[in-house]
Structures are given as C-alpha cells and as structure tokens.
C-alpha cells in the first residue's frame, strides 16, 4: 500500500497564520507541524512510500519534509516524494480538486504498482494505525474503505455523513446534511483498491474540481462496488479554524492529555533544527505549559504552548496563548489568549488580548473566539494595546495604532500582505 497525502490546501479559515505557509506546515504543539501527524502515522503503520501533493505556498513544507530523514522516509525504494503540479504538453493546470491532484500523478502511483492506495489529508491531528484499517478493508473484501468516526449529533451537519448497515457497508452518503440521519462522519481518509481508483479517476478526468467526497466515492457507490466505513474511536481533531487550532493546542497541556505525545508507543517525528535545551531564568514562573527546545524564558508563562527558540523577556506575562518558533517577546509584555506565528517580534510592554469582545469587522467567521492572531515575521512596536478578535500581520509601527491601541475587532494588515 502506498499513501498519497494531500497537502496543497490553503486553510483560509486560519487567517494570517496561513498567509505564507500551507496549512499542513503550520506549527503545532510546540515543536511540530500539522503534517508531522499523518507522516508519522504512515511510518508507524509501516507505510514507507508517501507522495505529498503540494500546491499552495509550498516552500516551508518542502524544506520541512526534505528527503524525509526525520520520519525515516529516506529510502532506496519509495520514501517520500513531494509532488507539485507541473506543466504538461497539453492541458496544463493547477490541482483543481483533491481527486484531480491524484489524477495528475497517476504515473507516480503506477510506478509502484500498488494493490492499495491510501488517501490522506495533511490537516488533522490524530494517531491512527492505517494497517488496522487495511486489515478491515481486506477482511470485508471492500474496494473502498472510508475512515469514519462518531461525532455528536448536533455537530454532524458540519461533516460528510455515512449511513451503514450492520456490517459496516455503506448504504448512503449525506454531504453536510441539514438533518443528519447518522452521526458517523467521514474523516477524509480513504483506502482504495488501486484498479478501481485508477478507473474512477480516468472516467471522471473531465469533471471540474474533481473531489473524493463529491465525485469519486459516489461514482464507486453507483457502480455498486463494496464501500465500507471503518469506525475510528481515538482522538481526531480537525484544526481548520483558529478556535479548534487553539483548543487542540491547549488540550496538550492537560496533566494526562487525551492526545498524549509522551507515550513511547506511536511516536510523532518532526524535523527539529533546534537542539539545545531550554533555559528558565531565576525570575520565571511556569505552570501548566509545554515549552520547546532552545527557548529562553525570563517571564511568567501559564496555560500556554511555547515553540522552540522563543525568547520571553523579563516580567512578561503569557497566558492561554500559543507562541510559535523563534518569536521574541519583549520585557513587560502581557499576552492573553493569543496565537503568535513564527519569528514575530513583540515590542516591550505591549499588551495583547484586552478590551471588549467586539466581533471582527472584516472576517468575523475567521477571527473570533476572542483570540488575537499575529502573523509570521510581524513586528509589533513597544507600548501598544491590542484588543480581542483581532489580526495583525506585517511590519507595523506606532503610527498604525490609533492612540497606541488596536481596538477589539480590528484587522491590521500592512501593504504587501495578503488578507
């Protein structure tokens, strides 16, 4: 079995966090990136051939994956291959949909001539043994198996829902139904018999924005091929929104987290270029937090996830926040419920996350949950106040803040930055 990992999505609901990186390359849990989870699952499940399909802002993703050394995917045969869209003699196009991306790489899969192909997406946090799923697939003589998990009935309308018989065979699909008739949600993880998938992709090659959920699976179902639902009951988290991203990070801090990174079994691997230990100074207070390698902490940190190489100045107070790699936080800052992306610099004595709960004026559906979101490489001057449900990106100076304050609900994106 070989795996195809879809990592081309932008993840626009993560706002400024994905302005310059694809969602799978967004940092998670102090030292990881989201794509580490499916990649580690692959190698832990014994899958050593993985094609990673990239499209949106792939630089960070490419450098992170490299030749796959951290995941032991640097192989003589197989290993990890990054597959970007490419020009063809006729009909060159971007990847227009999930299935279209696979279709454009038929030759890659054909070169391994696999029996089964596993389709994964690069934006979920979970530990899963794909081999167990494959056993299930074989046992049932299925031609397609969809990984599903039970979700609360009230949330079911956000997902693709499957309705199965008692053996797990799928009878019907509902895509984001108003009134769901089951609570088994598709996780976007599929195992296909390669001949069937190949046939479906070729047949539907003219389908615009060809998608697994919308086109390929219904196609297989209509052919009356056996399509099964594999029920997964472990931890699985879609980190598609800022709120769920923040929540999933915060869950790691629990004394015995539901999603435990400290188990010997099923390790999560990552490309960590920062080796030294972290230094905690005389004045610091740290509680209920996780902190990455090479960080230098001189302030107070509570309920937070701090990435590698972060510097926190004297007297700074960090609460309920996610601080990514190489961020510098000046002395005397107060930072509450914020997400600060990589290499940002926060000037001394600035305060983030105060004031009213006013909704964001431009993108209320993205910048909500009372979070302050700071983009990559952003610079925030000293002595400014930033309210809730805000986003800041780019090199800002004091003039950008009216009376030294960015009110709740405002968005400050400097010229040259994408919204």
């Amino acid at each position, binding site marked *: 079995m070989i795996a195809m990992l879809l990592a081309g999505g932008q993840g626009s609901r993560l706002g400024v966090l994905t302005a310059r990186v694809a969602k799978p390359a967004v940092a998670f849990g102090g*030292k990881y990136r989201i794509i580490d989870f499916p990649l580690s699952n692959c190698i832990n499940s014994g899958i050593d051939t993985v094609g990673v399909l990239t499209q949106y802002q792939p630089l960070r993703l490419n450098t992170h994956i490299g030749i796959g050394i*951290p995941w032991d995917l640097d192989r003589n045969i197989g290993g990890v291959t990054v597959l970007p869209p490419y020009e063809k003699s006729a009909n060159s196009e971007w990847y227009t949909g999930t299935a279209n991306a696979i279709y454009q790489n038929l030759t890659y899969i054909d070169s391994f001539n696999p029996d089964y192909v596993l389709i994964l997406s690069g934006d979920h946090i979970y530990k899963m043994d794909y081999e167990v799923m494959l056993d299930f697939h074989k046992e049932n003589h299925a031609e397609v198996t969809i990984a599903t998990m039970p979700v609360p009935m009230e949330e079911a309308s956000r997902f693709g829902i499957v309705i199965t018989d008692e053996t797990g065979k799928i009878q019907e699909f509902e895509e984001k139904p108003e009134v769901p008739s089951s609570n088994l949600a598709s996780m976007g993880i599929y195992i296909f018999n390669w001949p069937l998938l190949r046939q479906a992709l070729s047949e539907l090659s003219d389908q615009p924005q060809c998608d697994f959920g919308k086109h390929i699976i219904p196609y297989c179902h209509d052919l009356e091929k056996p399509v099964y639902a594999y029920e997964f009951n472990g931890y699985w988290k879609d980190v598609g929104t800022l709120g769920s991203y923040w929540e999933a990070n915060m869950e790691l801090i629990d004394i015995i987290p539901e999603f435990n990174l400290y188990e010997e079994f099923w390790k999560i*691997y990552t490309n960590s270029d920062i*080796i*030294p*230990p972290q*230094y905690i*100074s005389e004045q610091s207070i740290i509680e209920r937090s996780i902190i990455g390698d090479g960080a230098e902490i001189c302030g107070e940190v509570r309920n937070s996830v701090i990435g590698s190489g972060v510097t926190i100045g004297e007297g700074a107070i960090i609460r309920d926040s996610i601080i990514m790699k190489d961020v510098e936080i000046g002395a005397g800052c107060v930072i509450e419920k914020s997400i600060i992306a990589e290499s940002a610099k926060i000037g001394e004595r600035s305060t983030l996350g105060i004031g009213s709960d006013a909704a964001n004026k431009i993108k209320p559906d993205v910048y909500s949950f009372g979070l302050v979101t700071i983009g990559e490489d952003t610079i925030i001057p000293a002595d400014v106040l930033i309210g809730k449900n805000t986003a800041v990106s780019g090199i800002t100076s004091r003039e950008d803040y009216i009376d030294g304050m960015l009110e709740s609900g405002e968005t400050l994106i400097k010229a040259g930055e994408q919204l």
Partner: protein
Amino acid sequence: MRAVGIILAGGNNRKMKELTAKRATAAMPIAGSYRSIDFALSNMSNSHVQSVAVLTQYNTRSLNEHLNSSKWWDFGRKHGGLYVFTPTITNNNSDWYRGTADAIYQNIEFLKRCHEPYVIITSGDAVYKLDYNKVLEYHIAKKADITVVCKHLETGEDASRFGTVKLDEDMRIEEFEEKPMVAASNTVSTGVYIIRRRQLIDLIEHCASEDRYDFVNDILIRYKNLKNIYGYKIESYWSNISTVDAYYKTNMDFLKPEVRNYFFKQYPEVYSKVSDLPPAKYNPGAAVKNSLISSGCIINGMVENSVLFKKVFVGNNCVIKNSIILNDVYLGDNTYIENCIVESRDTIRANTRYVGEKEIKVVVERNERYGM
C-alpha cells in the same frame, strides 16, 4: 579542508567515578541535549574535514549508539565519512590499544590511504568550538612539525591534571610536562594537535618499533627539542570534563548566558543526534528557576540551579537543587536532591533524599520502574 581528523575517544577516567562505569568519557551527556564527542565532531564538520576516525575501546556501547548514523554531523557523504575503529585482532596484532599512539598505529592503514596532507588529532572529552582551518594556517605559517592547541587556565584552576607547556616568544614549546605534581605553568595542552600526515605515520611507526605507545610522552615530549613543536593559544571557552568536578562545573557553566550564547546561538552550530521527544511539559506544582530543561521532561516539582537532561520525570513535591539529572531519570514524589549528579536511566523511589555534602555526589539507583 586539507586534513583528516582523528578523535581519541578510547578513554575512561577513574576520576569520573561511577559515571564512566557504563560509558566512555566521550559519550558523557553534556548541557542537556549533547554528548561530549558532539563538540569535537561538530568542529570537524564545521571546519569541513571530510574523513574522521573515532578511535575507541572502553565500553563503546553508548558511544556506538550515539554514532549510529553519521548524518547528524553531516558526515553521510560519498567521499570520506565517519569511521569508528575499535581494536580488532589481526594477523600481527591481538592487543588492545595500549596507548594513544598505539591506537593510531593499529589504524595506520586509515592514515596511509588518505590523500589529505595533514591530520587533526583531538580528544572526545572536551567542550569547545574551534575552527581547525585557523590552526592549520598557523601551523603552515610557523613551518611547524607539530602544532599543539593550548589554553591558558585561569588562576585557581588545577593545571596538574593536564599536560602543561611553556612557550618561548616565538610560541615554540620549550617545556612540556605531562600531568606534573606541581604545575610550573598555567598554560595547558588541550589535546588538539595538527601534524603532517607523512610525518605522523613516520613518528608513529618509529614509536611502535620501540614498543612505545603514548602520543604525549613518547612523541611530544621525546621529540620536543628535535622537532618544531609550536603552541597555538585559544582564548575562547574550553573545558575538559574528565573528573566529576570538572564535569559538574562544565554543565553548570551552561547556566551562564554568555556560555549559552556562545554555544547555542552563535555560528557555527553544535550538532547532535536528534531524539524524537516532545517538548518539555510543566504541570501544576512546577517551579523552575535558573535551570536548563531538555525535551521530553515532565515537571511536577521544584527545580533550582540545575540541568535536567532529556526525558526526566520530576514527581510531585520534589526538590532538586544544584544538581545534574541525566537522561531518562524518574524521580518519585517528595524526592529531595541537592549537589548530586543522578546517573541516566535511574529510577528514584518516592521520599528519597540525596545530598552531596562536601563534594558532588554521584547517585546510581536502580529500581523497578512501572509504567508512567
């Protein structure tokens, strides 16, 4: 780089007490995330030395495990690479390495098959950063036969556990005493040498033909007046770890911002084998002051002025002061540890108390460990 490297990592030092019971000094963990040999290896790699031989014989398991792949130090190359040589039985030899010169002699084939004109010899038990290219330039400019890298120790530091040297105005070594009873000079040899490869082969073969085995006594000291042996002084941080006190002090030095900055932040980097551990975790009850904490640690208690290596578990109400806790140690609840070095993979039972009274205590406690 026009030199090959040799790292002498064979040794064990009785002054390290229990700490080297299970590993060679070169494999001693340093500064939370490193091992002693990483510094020499990173220097080699950063000086663009392509072939490096590590000569080792004492309890090599830990060292071999650390060196299981050369890619961490960027030696996974088509040309050259990292070679680990332990003593082997051959047609004309069945001895262990009887000394540093003998260790090189037994692997003389490695030297004979290289094409680089120079050899850099260093030990695996020192913490330092050095660009060997600079030393080589100096060596060539001085037309030296052998260049010895020297360090002037601060007053108060004990020079008598090193080879002490006395230099003339031209930096030529006038006197060289190995581990003198009373040190006449505060300038010591760091155990880093540069020498022409042909010259080294001749000296080593001649030495072996006289049944002499030690590089310092039988080559450096014996040839002192015959050959041009020069000293190259370094001013930067250099620390040898081969006593319990020196080992403790070297680790504690990393609590100083200037030392951390020099090794962790300034170019070039020190490389080490990557262990896939999650970030350190601070639970309620954690109170950490002026300490280094490595990845994989879970902290529920108090840690002060200490260095915690990887994957240390600190139980509830523990107090750790002025101590070094090596890799993968489990400290049960209410443990009190002060002025100690706790050996790696120890499991300390709850309510235990260890205090180093007059000197640093090395704690070795093996207990059954239950799943965490």
